[in-house]
């Protein structure tokens, strides 16, 4: 009788690999549970007309929800509004944040206080800021109407700030720019502070003017950070919901359209289709942006 061949101990590398897999397993499981599973479940749900009561049978509609969505003029209106909203708020908040960062990068008395004060709008809970704005524009006792109508006499009758479709769009953009610009400020300021002061000194010795210094030194140094801020903010604002929904009913951007479909009309299938389309659109934009950046850097 032959004895079994001796067991060869696994190599150190194989052991490490197995241990490594074991270590990443919780993270992978977490990603599956909170990202992959919801995405696929949402995709699955978008092909059905689910009953509110899960004990009742769901109805398989295939691509019916997508067909309904693409035939709905409200969807295109929301998409266009979202595009305008994202463009205005991202450009506005980045410009304002960048300008504030340049200012805060200089040395002046009370700089620490000014830096903290500028962050206030970002750290305040959304619901509080929304109510402050609603009260500011209140027709009975709001400061804005009081200043523009009673003090300055610019209008005979105050405009209906949050009812007029154009004014309300501008106001929700202004609100968002005011609320989120500190994010761009923090990011750009940290990038500005990493620029070596000697470079500026050398430029000054060479006789460069302030604008030239900004264009040839500051801007190229902060551009990668600005690009990241713009990409991140575009994604976040594309999914925006709460402040717009709370401020006005006249700006149904995609987030609001999705919420109404899911929780006012209770059409969970169509709502899932909307979120799948939104996800596809954002992923498309991210891939294009990443490819362009890769092309530019190579």
């Amino acid at each position, binding site marked *: 009788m032959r004895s079994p061949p001796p067991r060869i101990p696994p190599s150190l590398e194989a052991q490490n690999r197995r241990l490594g897999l074991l270590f990443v397993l919780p993270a992978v499981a977490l990603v599956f549970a909170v990202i992959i599973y919801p995405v696929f479940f949402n995709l699955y749900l978008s092909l059905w007309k689910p009953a*509110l009561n899960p*004990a*009742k049978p769901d109805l398989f509609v295939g691509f019916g929800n997508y067909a309904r969505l693409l035939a709905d003029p409200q969807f295109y209106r929301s998409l266009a509004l979202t595009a305008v909203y994202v463009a205005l708020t991202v450009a506005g908040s980045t410009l304002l944040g960048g300008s504030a960062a340049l200012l805060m990068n200089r040395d002046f008395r009370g700089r620490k206080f000014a830096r903290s004060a500028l962050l206030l709008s970002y750290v305040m809970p959304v619901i509080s800021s929304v109510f402050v704005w609603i009260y500011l524009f*209140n027709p009975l*006792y709001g400061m804005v109407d009081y200043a523009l109508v009673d003090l300055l006499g610019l209008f005979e009758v105050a405009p209906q700030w949050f*009812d007029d479709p154009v004014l309300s769009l501008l106001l929700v953009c202004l609100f968002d720019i005011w609320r989120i610009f500190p994010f761009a400020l923090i990011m750009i300021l940290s990038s500005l502070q990493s620029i070596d002061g000697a470079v500026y000194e050398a430029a000054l010795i060479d006789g460069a003017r302030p604008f030239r210094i900004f264009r040839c030194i500051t801007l190229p140094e902060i551009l990668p950070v600005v690009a990241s801020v713009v990409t991140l903010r575009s994604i976040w604002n594309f999914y925006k919901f709460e402040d717009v929904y709370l401020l006005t009913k006249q700006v149904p951007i995609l987030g609001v359209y999705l919420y109404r479909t899911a929780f006012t*009309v*209770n059409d969970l299938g169509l709502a899932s289709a909307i979120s799948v389309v939104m996800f596809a659109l954002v992923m498309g934009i991210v891939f294009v942006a990443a490819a362009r950046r890769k092309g530019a850097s190579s």
Partner: protein
Amino acid sequence: MKRRLIVVFVALLALLASCAKPASAPVGFEFMHTYVEEDRLKVIQGLIDAFQAENPGFEVKQVPVSEDAFWTRITTLMQGRQLPALIDVSVDQARLLAASDVVDVDTCTSVVQDVGVDRFYAGAVAVLRGDSGKLFGVPLTGWVQGIWYRKDLFAEKGLAAPEKWDDILTAAKAFHSPADKKYGIVFATEATDFTEQTFSQFALSNGAELFDASGKPAFNSPAMRRAVEFYRELYKYSLPGSNGFTQVKDSFSGGNAAMVVYSTYILGGLYEQGMADKVGFAVPEGVAPASFGMVSTEVITNTVPEAQRQAAAAFMKFLLRNENYIPWMHMAPGGPNPVLKGVASDPAYLGHPLLKAYGDTAKAIPEAFADLAMFGFQDGKTNPKMGEISARMIIPTALNNILVLGADLDGELAKAQKAMEDVVAGR
């Protein structure tokens, strides 16, 4: 030594097992509501403690959820098969839950029968009667809506109480002076259910029902059109814009409006401002007066085990006993009104200083529950599609477009009619 350890271990396990499953484990259930204010939570917890002391076999856990997140929470819990046994909802929400077949209509009906149908105001029970004749909820309290007006200012100008449509319009014109920030009448115009509730009272006072005899939507009927025209006419003498709770309430308490359309929840604030004796209450009357109110409804769900449903039923019967019912009513005195006839005239209920200040008005308001009128509630039954029509905000969106955005009246009526027909057809 080892054997002794094993014996001790096994004995411990046996002890643990016996602790984990006592002979008679109390039946626990969740009670979800929107009374998130700390003082109201305390009152409810006090009642729960008293109930548990009386019924050691039951355990109630209250789950307060803020009002704006309430329906979202209900739908997600429903999807996850985790609805609580007892939920405090509006009639509209109860209709939606009933349409989704998650209400234990038999238990709800038996609670009302056990308490005594005759003890309730007839209207409060009738609005909860579904197609099958069974109740899809237990009425607990209710608020009443109507025109609150400044009696003192009306007397100064010698105006009649704002009941008849013509009198309402005359008074609105008389007090309207926007340059001084004074408005004739302020009411809901935003695209929310508040506007649907306000408008429905005017429509119903003109005999405009939402469905015809065959159950087909009738939002384009001549009576409804006339009601919308009247609503638009009144808006000329109102604070411009999409008005909601804040604008309506503030304009009255701030002295900017002579009349507002609001629920009894306005009483608390006015009392604190010392305005109780200056305020009158009127029910609008076109072809007939239309009492409007909303019944706070307790829904017992059918998605929990039978034992939990019976526990919830026992809790409801406990709450509807006068000694427990009155403290519940006094949580926000004046706002919720008794749907139990006996309580409305009970000195213990009327003894609260706020209710005393309003005198006979406080006593008379609950009478509105005797004959409630409501969109979708016709011939003693609720139209099963009404909940969905309300949830989709079809009526308030049309009104907001007509009044605030100046959209064409007939075009909006036709659009709303089509949207309602889609709901009825299940599209």
